[in-house]
């Protein structure tokens, strides 16, 4: 069975601090895709990144970076120099290749304090 665990339910940091959101996944499939989505207070789900299981290269996009480690089944997300606008719920998600449904983690609620 597939599963995504985001152990951090809620995190608060002061603006300009760096913060890492953890994501651990479980699957026996060898081909799968990992995603991060942001859900701000307005409610929409904003796509941040997609990574396939064969590409372990880390990625940086502005203040956002992702660390994919197959050895530990983790796909962690770091925000550098956090800003108040980063306050949101962040979901890590998994899709296996032969399936259609995204399996979301429970989400991490991130508060960036001014």
């Amino acid at each position: 069975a597939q599963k995504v665990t985001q152990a951090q339910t809620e995190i608060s940091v002061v603006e300009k601090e760096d913060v890492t959101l953890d994501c651990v996944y479980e699957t026996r499939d060898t081909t799968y895709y990992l995603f991060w989505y942001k859900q701000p207070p307005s409610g929409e789900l904003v796509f941040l990144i997609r990574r396939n299981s064969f590409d372990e290269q880390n990625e940086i996009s502005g203040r956002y970076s992702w660390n994919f480690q197959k050895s530990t089944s983790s796909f962690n997300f770091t925000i550098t120099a956090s800003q108040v606008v980063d306050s949101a719920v962040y979901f890590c998600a998994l899709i296996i290749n032969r399936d259609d449904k995204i399996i979301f983690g429970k989400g991490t609620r991130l508060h960036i304090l001014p």
Partner: protein
Amino acid sequence: AAGVIQSPRHLIKEKRETATLKCYPIPRHDTVYWYQQGPGQDPQFLISFYEKMQSDKGSIPDRFSAQQFSDYHSELNMSSLELGDSALYFCASSLARRAGNSPLHFGNGTRLTVT
């Protein structure tokens, strides 16, 4: 850039009523997914369509039905509404046949409140 359009944004219905939610995918996206997100919960997969045919089915109640039309827009029909159906309903679309093969782009959601 065009995004996934969902209507209405908000809907209030009474118990046992019927509701219809609409989704207009990004142009050229032929795959549509529906998700339900209860308060404080993660989104749960309901159903998906590819080229107007049902592709996969998740935890969708029998009271709900959905279809994808010739212009690729999709509608989620919900009958005999219950209080527990109150949730945010998302539609997502993608270019690829399989959900992982290209990013899923979500609409802004329809917030359904059943009273």
